[in-house]
């Protein structure tokens, strides 16, 4: 038996449990992190957290390791995102026509992104292994010099970018393919009448129409690449010589290996700011480019 009060307020009754859950699980940790970032504490039972003001932030902002980690995070994110978008659009165009086995191809495409990242990290460790790995076998069979891949500070970050590109280009491709399906055929018919070539049609019709889709896809990737953790932790844990240490990994090391909860928290606050900032920037870009409000 439902009272009319219940019916009137149903939307709140429906929404509140989820919202409360998210707020409790999310808001509490964020506020706690912000608070702890002004303290120095190693979980000691004897020494309580000590108020240090902005010292943790000062320590980080004047520290080479922090800026290197920031640099790794940004370059990893931007390079991976740009490569994934370009390759993803290219692959979507390649597969846009109808052919036998298209569903099979789509299924294979799903595999990298649904497969457990930690397990895939291990597989890539084997592939990149300098003496027995497939990557060097391939290079050697093409008559090229073998590389050290993850074992070299100069190549490790690029090697990890390749893994991310392998894992997530399919997502961009699938999203773009879905977007392609929504493009009306009239503009192409008109272009055919004008005698436009394939490339011309792609640049002046497909790309502009796909722009919103591509932007959203790129934004999703941006958010997620910034947060990449599993693949890096399972393969290099930030090494060799910190060459793959991103903010995510450094935050983890500070918190759970050094037990410097204050410094770790201030890093996380800064990292959070970076993610939010970049996300808002992308949203702003999108709105500006679309010139409208959704």
């Amino acid at each position: 038996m439902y009272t009319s009060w219940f019916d009137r307020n149903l939307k709140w009754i429906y929404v509140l449990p989820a919202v409360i859950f998210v707020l409790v699980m999310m808001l509490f940790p964020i506020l706690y992190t912000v608070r702890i970032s002004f303290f120095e504490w190693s979980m000691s039972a004897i020494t309580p957290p000590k108020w240090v003001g902005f010292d943790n932030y000062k320590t980080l902002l004047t520290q080479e390791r922090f800026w290197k980690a920031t640099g790794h995070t940004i370059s990893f994110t931007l390079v991976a995102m740009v490569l994934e978008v370009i390759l993803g659009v290219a692959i979507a165009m390649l597969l846009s026509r109808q052919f036998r086995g298209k569903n099979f191809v789509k299924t294979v495409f799903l595999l990298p992104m649904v497969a457990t990242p930690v397990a895939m990290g291990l597989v890539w460790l084997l592939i990149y292994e300098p003496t027995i790995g497939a990557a060097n076998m391939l290079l050697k069979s093409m008559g090229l010099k073998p590389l050290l891949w993850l074992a070299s500070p100069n190549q490790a970050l690029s090697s990890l970018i390749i893994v991310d590109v392998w894992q997530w280009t399919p997502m961009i491709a699938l999203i773009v393919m879905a977007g392609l399906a929504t493009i009306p055929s009239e503009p192409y018919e008109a272009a055919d009448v004008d005698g436009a070539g394939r490339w011309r049609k792609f640049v002046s019709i497909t790309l502009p129409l796909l722009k919103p889709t591509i932007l959203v896809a790129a934004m999703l990737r941006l958010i997620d690449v910034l947060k990449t953790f599993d693949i890096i932790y399972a393969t290099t844990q930030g090494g060799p010589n910190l060459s793959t240490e991103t903010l995510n990994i450094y935050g983890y090391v500070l918190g759970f290996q050094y037990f410097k909860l204050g410094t770790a928290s201030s890093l996380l606050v800064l990292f959070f700011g970076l993610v939010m900032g970049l996300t808002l920037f992308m949203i702003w870009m999108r709105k500006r480019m679309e010139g409208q409000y959704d």
Partner: protein
Amino acid sequence: MTKRKRTAALIFGLLTALVLLAFAFPFIWMLLASFKTQSQIMSEGQLLFFKPTTHNYTSVFKEYDFLKYIVNSLIIGLGSTLLALLLGLPAAYAIARHHMHKLSLVILVARIIPGITFLIPWFILFSKIHLVDTYTALILSHMLVGLPFIIWIMISFFEALPKEIEEAGLIDGCNHHQVFLRVIMPISGPGVITASLLSFIFSWNNFMFSIILAGDKTKPLPVAVFNFMSYSEINWGALMAAACIITLPVLIIALLAQRYVVSGLAAGAVKG
């Protein structure tokens, strides 16, 4: 003209095959290596043709309690997905029907925030209330990953439902709650499946939350596999067997429910 077409088709076919191979290769490599002995992995002469052994698989189950980890992963994955559905479906419905888009933004923020931001507070909180190494802590944390996805996907699903369906229900004398339970839910199968599959996969794959919040009793597969690497000598065959075991279920889900998973991944994006 036909010749040109045929060459084009050939190039297209080759390119497709190449792309396919590039993305499938790590899986093929993993599968092959999981049936090789250590010395077969080491020797370049036995790339594709070798005498397969199932020793890696038996040793993974015998030496490490993999069955236990599989059960842990299942409990956590199913638990977090079901609870997230319980919270997420009504919320998504209300948001979709009453255009509460500000609220959906709150949910979206959960998707944007780096998970590691939660880890330290959770670790301290769950330690203090003795919840570390319990399914409760793991399910709660994994829900925070699954719930936003479920809500996000289901909002677009419910918005696509024609309003007439509900109006018909209301005329039949149902109240709004009954309409949701008896009219809307039964036709929401495809959306719910998509949402729950993704939520389950995210939980199954989650490593970051589990590595901190799980203990010996509740350790799920990703953490177990990772430990497996750190503490034995690098036994590639067994590692790859473990990797196969852990990826197999998600791969099967992806194969059987390909269109759901694709539509789920694409829905959030294309809709924006």
